[in-house]
């Protein structure tokens, strides 16, 4: 079958999944509470324990304004289910959102950083809601009991090992934390397509831009292709850190097909960026901790297209290039820091970094100016003595 044929078939399946009463009749009714002695009741109990851990987690973002905003977007697509959803924003630098069968929803900062507007966020949250409405986790639990048990066992071992060993256990640590969630959210491709369709329809019904759905997955595909790491480049792009949401070309094409004949909607781009702005610098720094420099550059360049937050974004570009240290990167980093200092929202550290690189690249006068500007602006910084040492060393040179 040609790729166009596959796309048409997938689109057809998506349309089938969202049209007609039979599918709607299978969706859970609002306010459903399962019998505690049933399998679903047991799942709820497990998810309630995971939710309690999330509330204690160091990753929990407790900014009420941000949480209210994200919850508001979730409710725009959840509508009649809004009262059942409990949203937790987690500061984790991976694209991910997930919703448990008991209504507990996690939205990770990696998603908030990558979505370009409210429409894109609404689609992803609508997608997760789709899994919830269709009881996909219950279906998968019934089909994957062995996997769920194995994940639980490994979670205990990995949690202990992560604390002991001097190796990078972050990915396994995430698994440890959310093994229970992952084990019941390892959805099939048909379930993913169904959730895409539900997310799409609910986003459009909220008056948001139909093309946002395919765009958010396409952006993730571009980041995956750009990755510094060969293993990432060679893998299929994922819509979840747990690798449970493969972003096939067919899925993206199906969403394009769905959007084709729909009237345009609102993106709510500026409102979205305003809600994210207080956390932008911290989330970018978190993203850099993954050390996937090329993917981070791709993301930064995309965020810069709107012409917003350029002091923060150019500083971050400098940070990426300085840490990557490929040939020519220090010059590019210096240029990025220099550009950043031209914007009011540049962090004061931009002048310190600029001075360091100007000195290293053989321009002592420019270094002196940058370092002095840093000292003027960072009056309470605890690293002033480092910059003063650097200036003294510069003055001592013949």
């Amino acid at each position, binding site marked *: 079958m040609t790729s166009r044929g596959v796309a048409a078939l997938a689109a057809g399946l998506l349309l089938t999944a969202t049209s007609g009463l039979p599918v709607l009749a299978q969706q859970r009714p609002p306010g459903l509470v399962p019998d505690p002695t049933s399998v679903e009741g047991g799942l709820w109990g497990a998810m309630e324990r995971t939710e309690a*851990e999330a509330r*204690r*987690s*160091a*990753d*929990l973002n407790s900014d009420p304004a941000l949480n209210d905003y994200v919850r508001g977007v979730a409710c725009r697509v959840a509508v009649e289910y809004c009262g059942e959803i409990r949203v937790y924003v987690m*500061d984790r630098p991976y694209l991910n959102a997930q919703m448990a069968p008991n209504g507990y929803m996690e939205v990770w900062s990696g998603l908030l950083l990558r979505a370009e507007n409210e429409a894109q966020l609404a689609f992803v949250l609508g997608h997760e809601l789709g899994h919830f409405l269709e009881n996909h986790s219950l279906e998968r639990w019934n089909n*994957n009991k*062995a*996997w769920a048990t*194995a*994940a639980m*066992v*490994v979670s205990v*071992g*990995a949690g*202990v*090992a*992560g*604390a*002991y*060993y*001097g*190796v*990078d*256990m*972050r*990915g*396994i*640590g995430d698994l*440890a*934390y959310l093994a229970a969630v992952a084990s019941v959210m*390892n959805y099939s491709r048909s379930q993913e397509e169904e959730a895409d369709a539900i997310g799409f329809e609910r986003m459009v019904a909220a008056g948001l831009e139909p093309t946002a759905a395919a765009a958010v997955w396409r952006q993730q595909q571009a980041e995956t292709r750009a990755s*510094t*790491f*060969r*293993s990432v480049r060679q893998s299929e792009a994922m819509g979840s850190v747990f690798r449970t949401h493969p972003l096939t070309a067919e899925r993206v094409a199906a969403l394009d097909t769905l959007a084709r004949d729909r009237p345009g909607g609102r993106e709510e781009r500026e409102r979205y960026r305003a809600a994210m702005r207080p956390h932008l610098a911290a989330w970018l720094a978190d993203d850099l*901790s*993954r*050390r996937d420099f090329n993917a981070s550059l791709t993301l930064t360049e995309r965020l810069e297209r709107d012409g917003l937050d350029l002091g923060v974004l150019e500083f971050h570009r400098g940070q990426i290039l*300085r840490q990557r*240290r490929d040939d020519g990167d220090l010059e590019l980093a210096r240029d990025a820091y220099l550009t950043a200092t031209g914007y009011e929202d540049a962090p004061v550290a931009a002048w*310190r*970094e600029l001075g*360091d690189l100007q000195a*290293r690249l053989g321009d002592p006068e420019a270094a002196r100016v940058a370092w002095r500007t840093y000292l003027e602006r960072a009056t309470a910084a*605890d*690293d002033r*003595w*480092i910059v003063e*040492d*650097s200036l003294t060393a510069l003055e001592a040179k013949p």
Partner: protein
Amino acid sequence: MKKSIVSLAVLGAALALSACETVTLAPAGPYAVGAGSGATLSRAWSDFTPISGLKKVRMLSIDGPLLNRLYLSEGLVTGDYIVQPTNRREATTPIYDASMSVTEQVEFVANSVTAMSYERVATSGVRPVQVNGQRGVRFDIEAATKEGLVIKGLGQAVKADEKLYVAIYIAPGEHYFAESRAAAEATMDSVTF
């Protein structure tokens, strides 16, 4: 999915086997870290290095690694890690570069603590320190475990003979950090190159 389960099972078996390696006693007195470098321990520590998976770094503890840890590196050169990446071909953890500025050395240590699976790692109180005649940098570390336990620590980076000597002390903020701080700091003060 089968592949994932097998991978996890292999990992679990590897962890179980490595747990059988020996933890040794590091008595008070001189302690060798690497060729020509070391420190003086003001009290006895348990040496967890054999089971740590670390290459050029020693790991000591008094009450167990979850309650206090002291990392001491031998002289790091360009390309060295504090925390080894899980995949040797993909540098997912910070790599030392000899051209790093003092600010970058602090960043390198802090990012390495992040790579140990700690969250919200922050540095403060960045101050100069003299260690065996070499000027270096020492700073406070604050972080959290994934479960939300507050962690406190000290970081140190001293450059000598074109090599970087790193020391990191971390412990839960409640009780344990203060309890072992003096012993850890005395060891950091005593590093030789």
